[in-house]
């Protein structure tokens, strides 16, 4: 397959892995965090850990949108599905995330939850079913936000009045800042997300690399991208640099995607937001602007009051921060499995626990 196979070349992978080993000599143990869930998945799926020297420890970061969505968001989404005429439309991975008492998957049995592949599918479904009110669950980082914003502008243009968005959107740099500050994690290098960076550009990481002296490399998602980015991090450490480098230059521009950024700021504004297990992070969430409040499910519907119960024994928060590995959790693989997830990291295929469970056990 063109543009994919080239980035999975066996010989080049072996060569880069060899270069990493020789450059890492003398560095001692180092912690690199791959921020994005798609990186975590690729690392596990291609068995990349086994190609690295033991001294390089890859920590899975909080970049799985499903995993960081707080429980009360799920509880409210389930509540929304309970309102007359409302159908909740969501990406598939959200369905199994446990709320306090139920999951969206269980509610799907009642016909009030619909899986969609894109936000436009949800909008089209609304257009075809004017008697229903379609609430799209807006989950995801800067990668998905522009498409959701675009659909809201489009819905207005097409005068679709039964399409709404319940925003749980988040932005990545504030969370990375929080993690960089945490001495317990001791991150010595960030593999920065690929597609988030395609939207926001390289600028937002400059502060992190400067303030905390942590090298940052924006990395593509293919195995050779990841290996090369690890090599770039190792070389920065070796030469005492801490800069933002862009390995994924075939997609990511320095200034990002200006059109997408403008679209985002027309529809959403930054605000404080709760991340599952990490608490409230200032300016890390996106809420719908006043100008679009007629499309904002949070404003249009009386959101059900929910009493959210904390997860007992679940250490997703620490796993998301990289302080603990899934294996440190006493629920992991016992009462928490992909069939019956207790914590969000086990739900999404990109969650650290699910990736561990599936590929390493």
């Amino acid at each position, binding site marked *: *397959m063109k543009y994919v196979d080239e980035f999975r070349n066996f010989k080049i992978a072996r060569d880069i892995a060899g270069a990493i080993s020789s450059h890492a000599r003398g560095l001692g143990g180092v912690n690199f965090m791959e921020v994005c869930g798609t990186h975590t998945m690729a690392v596990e799926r291609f068995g990349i850990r086994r*190609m690295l020297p033991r001294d390089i420890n890859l920590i899975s970061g909080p970049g799985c949108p499903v995993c960081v969505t707080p429980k009360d968001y799920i509880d409210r989404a389930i509540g929304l599905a309970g309102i007359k005429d409302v159908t909740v439309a969501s990406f598939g*991975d959200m369905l199994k995330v446990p709320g306090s008492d139920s999951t969206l998957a269980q509610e799907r049995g009642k016909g009030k939850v619909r899986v969609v592949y894109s936000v436009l599918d949800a909008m089209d479904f609304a257009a075809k079913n004017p008697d229903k009110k379609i609430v799209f669950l807006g989950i995801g980082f800067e990668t*998905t936000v522009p498409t959701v914003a675009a659909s809201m502008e489009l819905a207005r243009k097409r005068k679709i009045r039964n399409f709404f968005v319940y925003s749980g959107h988040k932005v990545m740099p504030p969370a990375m800042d929080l993690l960089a500050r945490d001495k317990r994690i001791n991150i010595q290098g960030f593999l920065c997300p690929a597609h988030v960076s395609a939207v926001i550009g390289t600028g937002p990481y400059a502060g992190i690399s400067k303030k905390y002296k942590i090298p940052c490399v924006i990395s593509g998602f293919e195995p*050779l991208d990841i290996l090369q980015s690890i090599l770039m991090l190792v070389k920065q450490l070796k030469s005492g640099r801490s800069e933002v480098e862009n390995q994924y230059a075939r997609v990511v521009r320095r200034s990002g995607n200006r059109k997408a950024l403008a679209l985002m700021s027309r529809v959403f504004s930054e605000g404080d937001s709760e991340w599952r297990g990490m608490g409230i992070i200032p300016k890390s969430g996106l809420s719908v602007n006043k100008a679009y409040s007629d499309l904002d499910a949070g404003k249009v519907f009386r959101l059900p009051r929910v009493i959210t119960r904390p997860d007992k024994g679940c250490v997703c928060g620490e796993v998301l921060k990289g302080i603990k590995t899934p294996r440190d959790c006493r629920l992991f693989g016992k009462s928490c499995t992909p*069939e019956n997830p207790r914590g969000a990291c086990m739900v999404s295929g990109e969650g650290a626990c699910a990736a561990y469970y599936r590929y*390493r056990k």
Partner: protein
Amino acid sequence: MKKITLSHGSGGRLTHELIRELFLKNFGNPSLDKLGDSAFIDMAGKKLAYTTDSFVVRPIFFPGGDIGRLAVSGTVNDLCVSGARPRYLSCAMIVEEGFGYDELRKITVSIKSACEQAGVDVVTGDFKVVEKGGADKIFINTSGVGEVYKNADLSMDRIRPGDKIILSGTAGDHAASILLAREDLKFRARIFSDCAPLNGLVSSVMCRGIKFMRDPTRGGLATTLNEISAALGRDIFIEEASIPVRSSVRALCEILGFDPLYMANEGKVVAIVSPESAMGVLNKMKKHPLGRSCGIIGEVTGDKGGGVYMKTRIGGARILDMLTGEQLPRIC
């Protein structure tokens, strides 16, 4: 309250648990307990294989087949991989009120042509209509009886370390075709289901060197290999680079975050073959139209663990676990 979810029917771990907890506990008997693709029964001195399967596919017509062709192939293939020559089928249909007469005719004609291809006859059947909403258009159940081949000696007990694992063709075609047809994804490529009766292919390669066969349907190749390794109590080692996957299927999977190794096939067979017979089986298989892209994808190892391990395309290694729940499209 515990409820049945779609994951219970996905062929993965939850399905297996449910079968054990409900069906084996209540129906358990020596034929059923083996949980083979077919049951073996001795009748009038003849060894017969007997199996059944229900078909609830949506959409009912898809590129490369339809629910009728699938209903014949599915049951025929379960008999084939049990080492039997399929002979007789039953066919029962449950149709929703309001279903098109012409569509039903089309499905019936398709059943007829699949039966001709497989050399089987529908010898008994049933037809029911339920109220609108009582079923999704049409459900079909078929069961089949076949005679066990004289030169077949299929038994897991004969599998030894070093035995080769042969896959008869590309992985994931059927599920990819259904996914494209079902979700109306705007893909320019057409992906055809591999849905086909396998009796021709299987009879052309059947020999004593073949120790075990299974058709990797629901849950795909990965699930089938896990079932085999768990039952054997031995590890299986495969190489990603040697598993044929159509580029269109791979592209679709890359975009949606699916893994073709977990996607259903309806015209493929996995065979475990002694090292001495492997090349012979492979050569014969390649000559059959349904086996052209077959290959050896791995082998049974001497390690006792019951897991499936895969050398990845780039030279890493990982566990290939059983499918857990449904594969769901991801967010980003």
